[in-house]
């Protein structure tokens, strides 16, 4: 018996590093695997149980492998707009926004979150790409801009419909946690520890991302998991949850080979930037915005139980028209789902396609993303 595909193709050349919660995960019975150059928990009691727990209650994810960066300096604003297709003039303080690091051809180097703090910008980038991102930013930002890699900070995500109830008991701030709606953040204290908390995440559920000093991470994780609603959740369920939520995973659904428009992430090209251009890859991206991209990222729903996996070929009749970039069994829907890039003509929801998998043709229907509806806590929702 042997695994057919590797769990991760981000295998580091060096020995894996450990994160602040390494011992805490092991003490809680996690199975640890190497991911993005770190030893990380892939599961505790089992991916399906952890997945369903997060959809019903609240799951605590350790995402300390992600890069937390702080950019400051007098020219930081125009400098950042030169590397990202973001409009910072409309970015309110403490309101995270999704953006993309692009290369000159419009390919995606990373996806990230940008938040305006009081005198600079806080960025959260992917773990597997953070060293390349830092090098790219240092190369493309002027010397007046200071880039601090916040390596002494851990990052936790508390996700699920009961995340608010659990965190509201613990997080003290000038305003109450309930003031935060989806994609809003603020500074709080948890058991005396300074925490940057935003109402955001990667599961499609209501939830929070919590940046705290690494030295306090185990104590805070323990405190959060002492709440009845909360269990620790591994990377395995993080992947199945984000797939159901239709959220792309960098290195799989996004890469330098994909443009934001193909990836159906046009919303990340902010309005003013569409009019003015001046960001990396603008020529190609604006042309694709105007006349449509040649292919699109879509959701595919499969029947039966056999999952389509990354790199499987998508067929329309006898013709290969695309490729799967993420796929697996959906614990919530109880059937396999996948994300794929397909020819734009075949990207309309309802289109019947097939995925070639181990010599079999699996019927697959194009569906709108997300597969499982988002349940974010938006402005105007009841607390």
């Amino acid at each position, binding site marked *: 018996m042997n695994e*057919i595909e590797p769990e991760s193709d981000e295998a580091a050349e060096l020995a894996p590093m450990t994160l602040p919660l390494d011992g805490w995960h092991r003490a809680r019975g996690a199975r640890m695997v190497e991911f993005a150059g770190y030893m990380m928990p892939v599961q505790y009691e089992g991916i399906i149980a952890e997945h369903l727990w997060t959809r019903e209650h609240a799951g605590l994810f350790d995402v300390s492998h992600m890069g937390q960066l702080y950019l400051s300096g007098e020219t930081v604003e125009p400098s950042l707009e030169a590397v990202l297709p973001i409009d910072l003039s409309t970015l309110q303080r403490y309101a995270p926004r999704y953006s993309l690091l692009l290369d000159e051809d419009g390919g995606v180097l990373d996806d990230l979150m940008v938040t305006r703090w009081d005198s600079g910008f806080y960025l959260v980038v992917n773990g597997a790409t953070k060293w390349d991102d830092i090098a790219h930013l240092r190369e493309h930002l002027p010397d007046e801009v200071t880039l601090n890699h916040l390596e002494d900070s851990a990052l936790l995500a508390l996700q699920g419909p009961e995340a608010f109830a659990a965190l509201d008991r613990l997080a003290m701030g000038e305003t109450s946690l309930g003031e935060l709606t989806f994609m809003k953040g603020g500074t709080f204290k948890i058991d005396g520890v300074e925490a940057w908390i935003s109402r955001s995440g990667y599961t499609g559920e209501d939830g929070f991302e919590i940046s705290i000093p690494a030295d306090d991470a185990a104590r805070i994780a323990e405190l959060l998991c002492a709440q009845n609603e909360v269990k620790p959740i591994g990377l395995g369920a993080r992947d199945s949850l984000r797939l159901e939520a239709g959220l792309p995973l960098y290195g799989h659904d996004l890469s330098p080979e994909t443009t934001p428009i193909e990836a159906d992430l046009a919303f990340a090209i902010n309005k003013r930037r569409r009019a003015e251009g001046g960001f990396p890859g603008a020529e190609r991206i604006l042309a694709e915005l105007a006349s449509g991209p040649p292919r699109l990222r879509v959701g595919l729903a499969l029947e039966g139980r056999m999952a389509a996996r990354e790199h499987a070929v998508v067929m329309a009749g006898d013709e290969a028209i695309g490729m799967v970039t993420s796929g697996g069994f959906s614990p919530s829907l109880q059937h396999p789902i996948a994300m794929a890039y397909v020819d734009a003509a075949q990207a309309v929801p309802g289109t019947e396609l097939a995925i070639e998998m181990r010599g079999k043709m699996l019927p697959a229907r194009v569906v709108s993303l997300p597969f499982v509806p988002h349940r974010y806590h938006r402005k105007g929702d009841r607390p």
Partner: protein
Amino acid sequence: MSRYFTKDHEWIEISGQVGTVGITDYAQSQLGDITFVELPELGSSITKGASVSVVDSVKAASDVYTPVSGEVVEVNEALGDAPETVNSDAGGSGWLFKLTLSDPGELDGLMDEAAYSAYVAEL
């Protein structure tokens, strides 16, 4: 009856001319939640070491290699609706297929339970 094990974490239990094949408890624990099992074709002739079945878990798909050569005479149809049986009872009701052995001498290269346990302990 006697049971043999492979380094790839399959087991085979011999009863007369027929061998029953499954994956070990260690294997299922490494795979995690199993969501689908692709079984070999009934009546097919399979060769020792060939990939004849695939076990799909939430995170990945894994090949299952037949420990010996022979002809597939039965597959565990119950796994179609309940693939999780491989998790809950890998060494019993979670068996995958049965075959008639074409060369019982192939069993000589496999491990017994004690040797397999020692092998897993080293992993």
